[in-house]
């Protein structure tokens, strides 16, 4: 016998030691994306033109910049979680799976930071 209650043993067990965190994060980012995505789609399609100066003016507006940065983070997070599920479902060779998951994580971080840096850069250039 162990001095370990059944509950304590059950908590933290399961396939990966956790399970609901990923599920919940996917739902929360989806709600954020629903709001930010509708805003972005609306702004994109009501943009005067996609000429350099119009795009620069749009991105440099402080409120737009903040929402674009939130959109970037939410999209990258949601996309990373989704691609992770797809890799886990379809890639069965352990080494390839791990390497794909790491590559996906690096790529998502790179794309997100590149977009965030560009938004800040456009905003500061307009000052």
């Amino acid at each position: 016998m162990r001095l370990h209650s059944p509950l304590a043993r059950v908590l933290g067990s399961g396939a990966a030691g956790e399970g609901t965190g990923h599920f919940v994060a996917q739902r929360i980012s989806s709600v954020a994306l629903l709001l930010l995505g509708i805003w972005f789609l609306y702004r994109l399609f009501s943009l005067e033109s996609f000429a350099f100066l119009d795009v620069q003016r749009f991105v440099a507006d402080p409120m737009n910049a903040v929402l674009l940065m939130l959109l970037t983070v939410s999209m990258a997070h949601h996309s990373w979680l989704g691609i992770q599920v797809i890799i886990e479902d379809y890639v069965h060779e352990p080494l390839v799976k791990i390497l794909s998951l790491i590559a996906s994580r690096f790529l998502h971080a790179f794309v997100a930071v590149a977009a965030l840096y560009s938004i800040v850069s456009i905003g500061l250039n307009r000052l």
Partner: protein
Amino acid sequence: MFLSILHRMTGVFLSLGLVVFALWLVRASAGPEQYQYFRAAMGSLPGIVLLIGCTFAFLLHAANGIRHLVWDTGRGLEIRDANRSAWLALAFSALGTAVLWGMRL
């Protein structure tokens, strides 16, 4: 039923859309000349097809995502209801894409 795999496919496609989104901002921050290349590429026929695809994929993924959120509450899981909401999501995204791009083109 078919929307289940379409949800994954539009999701992967939208990950490509994320790259286009980031590229748009990176090019715009690099200056007018660099941005011009990006704008020309997106204004070409393959570029417009890609952007229309992203619009449709976003609307379908969003509408189907709402179905998933409703299902999470235990509602709408009857086959009849699920089939109806599937067609609704598909019609909404097709119509939405047509309206948005009809305004733009």
